[in-house]
């Protein structure tokens, strides 16, 4: 009786479907969800757009050692180094990255740069909305990659000199 067999099979299949209809949904409601991420959720380990971190004094952690660029299999990191001076202190060490570009046309988000970084300056953030109509927009400059400065350091003149126009959105310090 092949017909009965088929009906039984369909009934069994549909029963799973109907049962699932009463389970809570696991699909993210991106991009119509709530919050700044509009419903997107990430695992902590997600490798998104890079973030160049700052130390506890708000100085850049990157010392322009070029190890990330050397380690990059896609050759997408471009750095120019410069020396910190007493008047213009950008990073915690003697040297800082004057230019730090990542070309997201080429980046494969492998995380090797993060592995290579001796100062934990470069990390993967959770940024993922980088689609654009113009490939030149995919070359991110240091200003776009830098972490926001900590709010309590807003009035630090050393820190302000490191701030670059068009940089990451800064939290406004009280009284600023």
């Amino acid at each position, binding site marked *: 009786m092949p017909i009965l067999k088929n009906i039984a099979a369909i009934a069994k299949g549909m029963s799973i479907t109907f049962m699932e209809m009463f389970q809570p949904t696991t699909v993210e409601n991106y991009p119509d969800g709530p919050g700044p991420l509009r419903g997107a959720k990430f695992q902590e380990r997600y490798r998104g757009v890079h973030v160049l971190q700052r130390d506890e004094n708000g100085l850049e952690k990157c*010392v*322009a*050692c*070029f*190890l990330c*660029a*050397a380690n990059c299999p896609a050759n997408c990191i471009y750095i120019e*180094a*410069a*020396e910190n001076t007493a008047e213009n202190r950008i990073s915690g*060490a*003697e*040297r800082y990255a004057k230019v730090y570009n990542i070309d997201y046309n080429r980046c494969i988000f492998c995380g090797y740069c993060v592995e290579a970084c*001796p*100062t934990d300056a470069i990390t993967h953030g959770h940024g993922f909305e980088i689609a654009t109509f113009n490939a030149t927009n995919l070359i991110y400059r240091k200003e776009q990659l830098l972490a926001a400065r900590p709010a309590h350091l807003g009035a630090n003149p050393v820190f302000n000199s490191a701030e670059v126009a068009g940089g990451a959105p800064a939290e406004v310090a009280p009284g600023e």
Partner: protein
Amino acid sequence: MADAPKLVNITVDGKPVAAPAGTLLIEACKTVGIEVPSFCYYPNLSLQGACRMCLVRVEKMPKLQTACTTGITEGMVVVTDSDEIRQARKSMVEMLLGNHPLDCPVCDAGGECELQDMTFSYGAAESKFIELKQHRDEQQWSPVVYFDRPRCILCYRCVRVCGEGMDVWALGVDNRGAVSTIVPNKQDHLECEECGMCIDICPVGALTSGAYRYKTRPWEMKHVGTTCTHCADGCKTTLGVRRSDTGMEIVRGDNRDKSGINGDFLCIKGRYAFDFANNEDRLTQPLIRKGGRLVPATWEEAFEFVGRRFKEVLDREGGRAIGVIGSTRTTNEENYLLQKFARVALGTNNIDHHRTADFPAFAAALHGKSGATASMRDVYNASAILLIGNDPTEEHPLLAWQIRNNVRLHNARLYVVNSRPIKLRRQAASFTQVTSETDFTEFLGGDESLASFATREGWNAVRDKLRAEQGLVIIFGSEIFGEDIQALARFAASVPGAKLLCLGDYANSRGAADMGLYPDLLPGYFPVSGAGKFHQEWKITPAAPGMNIGQMFEATKTGQLKALYVIGANPVGRLNVNPSTLKNTFVVVQDMFLTETAALADVVLPAANAYEKAGTFTNTCGDIQILKKAGEVTTAKPDFEMIVRIADAIGFDVRKLVPFGHGVHADMGQSRGAQSGEADQHAVWLEANGLEPKMSPFDPVATLDEIQRLVPGYDVSRTELLAGNDQHTSIAAMGPGTVQNPELIVPAKNNLFSSGTLGRYSRTLNSVIENKDPEPADAVPTD
């Protein structure tokens, strides 16, 4: 020659090794490819035995021995790698890292640091030490030398190379034990020759360069081995280049592979003074004078304009109304092309350059005496050296290095004859001070009938000693010219095996002379009147000698000279020419900067420098070396290309100028009969030498082909040349030469920190000059 030294047989790691008696164990191991690590040992410097990295086990010796201080003895059995040895070395590295900051990501030596390598090899990255590291701030000792004390591992290489190698003795060691520290001679700064040898030799990042500071990292650069463009010694230098907005930027100079005539030596100019290329005053586009002002123009416009104006002069008055001034810093190919352009395309012998030595008289004196010229390598190996005039320490740093180290390592005897107490007298076995130029002549001639002889009896003794020398190299500066060179050559002939070396001043002064930038001499010092071979090749060669530089500027005053073509030279600035004398002359200048001459020009063409093009240089000894393109700016063109473009713009067939494309359709004489003499000689030569015809009129190698074919003495091995090795060209094989008017020879008078026009635009050199103490450095021991 002494007998070959006795060989001693030892066994290293089971391999039999035979080396001359007296060889150090560490060197003997190298001969069979066993590398014994070391920090303090450095070939050709005195032994230190400080780092204990080279510990090896020698059979029948109770403890581990240092391979760098142990001489080999017959039957020695050595183990260079075992658990015991690895443990000992690991402990040494751990000790060195005890206070060594781990700031490798910031340190300029990171990536080419010997301590890093050792730590990787011996795995001492984890330390037992828990003490806090002692930090000391970095010190700047001079514009180019920075010292980071905690990074120093006290190998004393810098102290030794500065003292023994450079004879400057500017570095020392203060305190003792664990608090020892390297100190500069002026307590908080250095007063020295700024050669940067200490930085180069530092195995870690304790001594770092101000010029290279934090610019990039070693693996980010491309390394190009080329020849230095400053003095006439022709050091091989490795330029580290990195891409920049305008092409390729040179960020570092050193001699990375320790090859070439200079080994590990470079002076301040070779090491740091490449920065003129990035000077902001550098010309970036062709300029044409319009309404009294130089205004930017396109290349096409400029070439067309120059070609048209040259053509007008040629048609109206012929080639004798045009003068050409060549450069001492352009390549052999460019110099050859320039004189061919003048003689063949313009039909004039009005060609000259800034002469700094009397090479034609040198050629005349040595004509036919093959083997009588010394190469830079000969200076290092000669058993005796006579140095007449000049101050090599200032003007020829490599020559001074060769002399010093020959005396130090080979016990050569140095005889100095000079009007000043030059620094090299400290190495000299005899120093004879003369007072005037005639004294030089007298010293050489040894004319005992001279009245003043009684006061100079020491001279005779020196001359007698010199005559007794075997393998003497005689080096002379611009104090000796004309007939004196003949006298000197006669003196040399009386000493068996003596070789001569004539000192010019600029990177390719010798090349400019060899390539015939003279109004009366063709390439290879052949007189223009008897232009046999060249006439055959080029068909047209003007037979009457042309005007020299002085005459050219006289002729511009009288209106005889209607156009002047200047390449890489600044005759106006050097000869103090009144600007008004050039107001009726059409002046074209190819240069990097708006020099005094370029400022008066009607057309200025921005030129590439020697680091930005390919070609060959001949150093003052006659050693020809290759130049490879390192840096690149998109806004300048090589002089070679510009000369060809101008010839083309005049309407001259550039095939007659550059032998490119020859042979491709040549019939090798078959159709006209091989005996007819009409065969394309160049194609035949290329074929015979297994060389390809060049396909571009801008390829200088096409001209090198012609130089090698036509200029005697330049027929050196192409393989060696292209491999980056120096090849000695013999001036004795060249033409008969001639004695020149000595007034035309103007020494450059450059010192360690100046380098003609290039020096004026080098930020590093200028910063060093500004930082110099007004009073001279310490008087140093004379014994």
